[in-house]
């Protein structure tokens, strides 16, 4: 079977197989209303309200959205706009912790007797795609079960540094099993495939043991190539199915869920405690003691770094997520989001990228692209703002994995230009729509 192209990124999995430590001493949390794809949640508390761990603080808006729960016990001190990593502003609820972490006494184990109740439960749990995408999970499952041929579980974890999914697979197999049995019961899942990169020996062992207890569940060991965990790449490598540009996994009969998302569903079904904490990999050359840390959602990144022994070198760049697709943040005061699986602090040396020079037409970009695009040509077309050429070059297929920029010996801004080109095509499409409408 042919495998899609990609690049060999450094692994730097310093925190692998080290377990995870719960953080202590969080003084306050910042809970942005937009931690998911869709409409921002609507605050359901006022300044001065007392809340406990698991108390609803924001309801899901109409349409695609997700509710938010308090991750600490304490008092709501402020509801105001904060700056997000994308540069826009978003309302956030700020809660001062009383240090007790008292759980909300109204929390009860959800009763699930039908498929619809299961979907409702997933919606109520506040769970969104925890691999980084943040797409509300219930919406993925809100489909005709007849259409589902496979559930593909993403345990590839192909980004450098990150090991929080490995932690889930080794230490939370029970939660995953609980969720999978419930999903299997209510959706009649015939086939469940867990895709894991071959370097995660312990995770593979743990998942193989679990899969033996679930009929139709198997582990697929995948080669270590970035971006193995890209949705279309993973679906192709586990099922040989090709998702066409503009289509979703369900269009080829697949639902793709990150392994930590599955574990979160299991934990909610077991206990009724909604999504309030995350295992986050804290790493990077600037961090003194890299660790996996279990943190309340909303904790400021600075608290995570302090818990990991502080900085051993001055950080020059701090990232949400891995270095290939992660987002650089303006300061360490920003909070852990629902979808945050890692925070990486890079030193000036690590953050320094080579100078951009002339394209030598080596073709490394097209040979690295998992989808066979030709980024060097896309860059030329974008410079001319040639929408027709961009369409012909299929730039809308690009998933922004960054292989092209990573491999380019001239360090040209290839994936960055792909992103701008996709934007350009969206604008052209919108213009055409208004012209015709």
């Amino acid at each position, binding site marked *: 079977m042919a495998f899609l192209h990609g690049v060999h990124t450094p692994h730097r999995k310093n925190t692998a197989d080290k377990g995870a430590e719960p953080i202590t001493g969080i003084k306050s949390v910042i809970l942005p209303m937009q931690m998911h794809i869709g409409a921002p949640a609507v605050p359901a508390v006022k300044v001065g309200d007392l809340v406990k761990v698991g108390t609803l603080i924001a309801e899901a808006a109409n349409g695609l959205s997700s509710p938010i729960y308090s991750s600490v016990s304490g008092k709501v001190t402020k509801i105001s706009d904060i700056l997000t990593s994308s540069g826009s502003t978003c309302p956030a609820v700020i809660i001062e912790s009383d240090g007790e972490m008292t759980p909300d006494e109204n929390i009860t184990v959800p009763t699930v007797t039908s498929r619809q109740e299961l979907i409702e439960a997933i919606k109520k749990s506040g769970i969104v795609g925890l691999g980084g995408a943040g797409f509300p999970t219930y919406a993925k499952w809100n489909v005709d079960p007849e259409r589902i041929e496979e559930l593909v579980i993403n345990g590839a974890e192909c980004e450098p540094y990150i090991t929080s999914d490995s932690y889930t697979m080794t230490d939370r197999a029970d939660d995953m099993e609980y969720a999978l049995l419930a999903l299997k019961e209510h959706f009649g899942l015939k086939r469940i495939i867990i895709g894991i990169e071959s370097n995660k020996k312990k995770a593979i062992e743990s998942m193989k043991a679990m899969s033996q207890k679930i009929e139709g569940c198997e582990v697929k060991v995948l080669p270590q190539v970035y971006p193995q965990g890209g949705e279309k790449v993973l679906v192709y490598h586990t099922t040989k199915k090709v998702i066409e*540009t503009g289509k979703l996994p369900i269009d080829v009969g697949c639902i793709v869920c990150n392994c930590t998302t599955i574990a979160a569903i299991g934990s909610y079904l077991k206990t009724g405690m909604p999504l309030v904490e995350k295992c986050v990999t804290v790493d990077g050359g600037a961090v003194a003691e890299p660790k996996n840390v279990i943190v309340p959602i909303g904790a400021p990144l600075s608290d995570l770094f302090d818990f990991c022994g502080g900085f051993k070198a001055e950080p020059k760049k701090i990232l949400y997520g891995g270095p290939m697709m992660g987002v650089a943040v303006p300061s360490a005061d920003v909070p852990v989001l629902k979808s945050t699986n890692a925070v990486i602090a890079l030193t000036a040396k690590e953050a320094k990228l080579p100078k951009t*020079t002339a394209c030598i037409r080596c073709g490394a970009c097209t040979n690295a692209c998992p989808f066979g695009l030709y980024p060097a040509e896309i860059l030329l077309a974008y410079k001319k703002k040639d929408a027709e050429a961009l369409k012909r070059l299929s730039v809308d297929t690009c998933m922004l994995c960054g292989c092209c920029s990573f491999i380019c010996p*001239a360090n040209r801004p290839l994936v960055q230009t792909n992103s701008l080109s996709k934007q350009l095509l969206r604008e052209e499409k919108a213009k055409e729509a208004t012209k015709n409408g």
Partner: protein
Amino acid sequence: MDNLLSLSASPHIHSGRSTSAIMRDVLIALLPTTVAGTIIFGLRSLLVVAVCVISCVLLEALYNLITKKDQTIGDLSAAVTGLLLALNLPANVPIWQCVVGCVFAIILVKCLFGGIGRNLVNPAITARVFMLVSFSSLAKAAFPANVDAVSSATPLMQIEQGTVPSLLDLFLGKNGGAIGEVSAAALLVGFIYLLCRRVITWHIPVSFIGSVFLLSFALEGSATTALALILSGGLFIGAIFMATDYVTSPPTPLGKIVFGLGAGLLTFLIRHFGAYPEGVSFAILFMNILTPYIEKLGAFKVFGGRKA
């Protein structure tokens, strides 16, 4: 506040590959054949190499200075052009002709088209072809000092006259020709180095040399003669080092194979039916011009792309 965090779009790490590192690898890969050429043809070879490398680098530096462009000689591509051109010249070539060749390669073929990455044809090969048609000295190959220049004919001429030289001599390079083209053994060492360093892939050299071998075998009916034919002339240096130039060859495996087969066919045709005994340079130059079309032909199919 000098400790502001830097913000930029992903990716935040880089593979560390760079143009200058690639060019450095090419220079290293050309070392064995440079050494072999010097041993075979004497110290004058080194003079030719030095003149060409220095001229090319100085000319590019000067061009950048005069046209107020960023200095690019640090990427080492001018040095590669100089070395390749030198290795494609006989050791007894007049020095002034070397300099003229370098002006042609660097100024006309490379810089005037926009510098590295923008040239349509390979600078070294084009300069060699220019010199071949301009200066008669190039047609007269140099011969190893210790070899009794068998009727002073290059191996290709000998084969045409019906005598097949010893394959071992051809492989080691004990025969007449340009400085860097005679020792297949040394060129193969460079080829293996480039493959290991992932600077080039096997596609162009193997399809190029392979097609010349198969066509020659079909025509001559003798494996020995066909082997002698691929070991002779500029085929190895051309297929390994010149035809694989990134700028002027297609980027995908399919494109590279089409390119290699085309160059092989043209080399065979020129060698057997053309006026010149050797056709490698002309073949590569011709394929350089076709490259934009081969590139389209060999482009990857986009994964999940809509059917046109």
